[in-house]
């Protein structure tokens, strides 16, 4: 009784915005319950022509690259050894873990038989991109959960798990990058089967590679936006100096993406490209405003060093990525005579999932040390019990 009362007073002390998020999540949860009671046909605008709608296009195909910050930053900090970006890693891991958990929830809602999700483990089909993605998403959610356990173990002072987790840190970072490379690209492979269905502007054999490179761009942009938002609204210190370093990498990845995209259009696709005005506009917005404009913005030092303009450029990349995923998975697949748009319930569920993401991030940041992480106190070098690297190493000793 007292515990319940304590929780009640705690919730009452929350900011109004958090309460609003709680309301949105509740509405989304009720809406997803309706899907199971009344069936997919009654609650969604899906039909035999459009078997995949908003839930696949946003909750899976778009949400996965939006959660790419964790693996991108993990690899940048720990493998490419840009150690000073370390303070950004934990918030990115929390975002990634939440993102993937919600992807799993979205996918389960969309499945006709969610109670049979485990069948993927029993009946393998290695020819299926969906099999690949389900295995990767489950594996990567586990990796993110283990990475997320660090702040939890710190919070409760569990020393042994902390030591195990620290010992696992590097293997987890490498596994995260390898698994993410696979499923980020395989989401693009999904649509390689849609020959003669996906519009020529987006259908090309490089789709998996393009999905992977754009996921890396979006991962870094999300981190820039998130750190700026945490500074602005959650009273966290300004990480502008670190974000500048991150922003320096973006012109390279964006440039690579644009080059691959142009190459795929010119050399690997067959026209007609501009036969449908709506799609042409969508393509121009995606490429022009979502990738080329931020490329030129991030290429300028003045933009990278300015907190506001850097955030705007990062926001444009996110816009480009979201539009690209919708173009590939929804707009580009549409029959001009028969338009799909999401139903109220589909929209409420997706809004609930987005609200849930923000809500859980804020709550986790409130109760766990995800910002107060001091990398300088942690020895990240690989354990060296045999003293091979030090002076005792014969190869080094013999070198002089």
């Amino acid at each position, binding site marked *: 009784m007292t515990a319940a009362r304590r929780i009640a007073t705690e919730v009452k002390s929350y900011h109004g915005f958090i309460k609003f998020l709680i309301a949105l999540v509740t509405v989304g949860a009720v809406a997803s319950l309706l899907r199971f009671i009344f069936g997919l046909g009654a609650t969604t605008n899906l039909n035999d022509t459009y*078997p995949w709608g908003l839930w696949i296009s946003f909750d899976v195909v778009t949400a996965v690259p939006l959660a790419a910050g964790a693996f991108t930053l993990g690899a940048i900090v720990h493998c490419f050894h840009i150690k000073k970006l370390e303070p950004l890693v934990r918030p990115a891991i929390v975002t990634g873990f939440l993102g993937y958990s919600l992807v799993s929830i979205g996918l389960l809602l969309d499945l006709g038989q969610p109670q049979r999700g485990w069948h993927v483990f029993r009946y393998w089909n290695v020819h299926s991109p969906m099999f690949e993605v389900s295995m990767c998403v489950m594996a990567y959610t586990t990796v993110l959960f283990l990475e997320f356990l660090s702040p939890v173990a710190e919070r409760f002072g569990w020393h042994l798990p902390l030591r195990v987790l620290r010992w696992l840190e590097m293997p987890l970072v490498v596994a995260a990058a390898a698994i993410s490379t696979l499923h980020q690209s395989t989401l693009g492979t999904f649509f390689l089967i849609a020959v003669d269905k996906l519009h020529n502007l987006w259908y090309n054999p490089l789709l998996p590679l393009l999905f992977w490179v754009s996921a890396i761009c979006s991962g870094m942009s999300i981190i820039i936006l998130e750190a700026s938002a945490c500074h602005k609204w959650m009273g966290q210190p300004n990480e502008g100096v670190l974000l500048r370093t991150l922003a320096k990498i973006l012109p390279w990845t964006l440039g690579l993406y644009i080059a691959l995209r142009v190459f795929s259009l010119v050399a690997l696709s067959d026209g007609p490209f501009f036969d449908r005005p709506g799609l042409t506009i969508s393509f121009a917005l995606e490429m022009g405003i979502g990738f080329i404009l931020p490329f030129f913005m991030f290429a300028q030092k003045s933009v990278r060093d300015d907190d506001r303009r850097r955030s705007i450029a990062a926001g444009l990349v996110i816009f480009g990525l979201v539009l690209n995923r919708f173009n590939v998975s929804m707009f580009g697949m549409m029959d001009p005579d028969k338009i799909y748009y999401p139903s109220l319930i589909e929209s409420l569920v997706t809004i609930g999932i987005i609200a849930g993401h923000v809500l859980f991030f804020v709550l986790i940041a409130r109760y766990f040390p995800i910002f107060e992480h001091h990398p300088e106190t942690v020895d990240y070098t690989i354990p060296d019990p045999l003293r091979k690297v*030090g002076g005792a190493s014969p190869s080094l000793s013999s070198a002089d």
Partner: protein
Amino acid sequence: MSTLDTTKNHAFLIDMTKCTGCRGCQVACKQWNQLEAEKTVFFSGEGYQNPPAMSEYTYTRIKFRDYQKNGQNEFAFYKEMCMHCNDPACASVCPVGAFKKTAEGPVVYDDKRCIGCRFCMIACPFGVPKYEWSKGLPLVKKCTGCHDRVREGMKPACATACPTAITYGPRAAMIQAAERRLARYPDRYIHKVYGKEEAGGTSVIYLTSLPFDELGFKKVTMRALPSFTWQALRLVPGIFLTVGGGLSALSWINHRRDRIKALREADETGTETAEPKEEQQ
């Protein structure tokens, strides 16, 4: 009853010029597969076409097409059904392998395995798999090629009921028969055996007198669809090892460099560390 040699890949040869539009095939299909009736209205499509589309209750349907020939009104027909591809897209994309191309020809669906992800519906170039949209825990529905009949040596229900247009037999023989008809009556047909190469070859072969797209046939690639995704998916193990191995090596090198640098700095400042001193190189 055993009249079929079930060791061979069997195919339907459907000669649309011989179809009378009686829709006996539709009725036979519903009877054999115990499919519910659909509430429909007259003239919801062209001619006497009914029901308006294939669905979870309707595995096959005759599409009507009104056209004029020598000033006379004529009907043309197209029997919509699963094409039973030789290398089916649905089977390749299904994460749990619920679809299987049987040795006898039909592509069959295992409703005990299906998780309901609907990737088969996205992948099928002919738009065949349909979904039980009215149910809370829906499954996929599609033409079974009457595998249960074919396995026992009987012809599929629609082929048995059809008085004129459908021949059923080994696929190679059906293609030969189709080509013979094209050679003998070049004026009667569009010169094409639909299904010989479409989507890598199908077990339903069509002959028509009207252009295929006019009848509502989908434009499909001649390449087997699974090859489009496999050309990317086959790289998965290699990419996993390359990225994993590359990043492992990179971080090992960087960490080693760090450690040596730290030791050297400690050495230069003369600080005693627990590590053995590094010798100058």
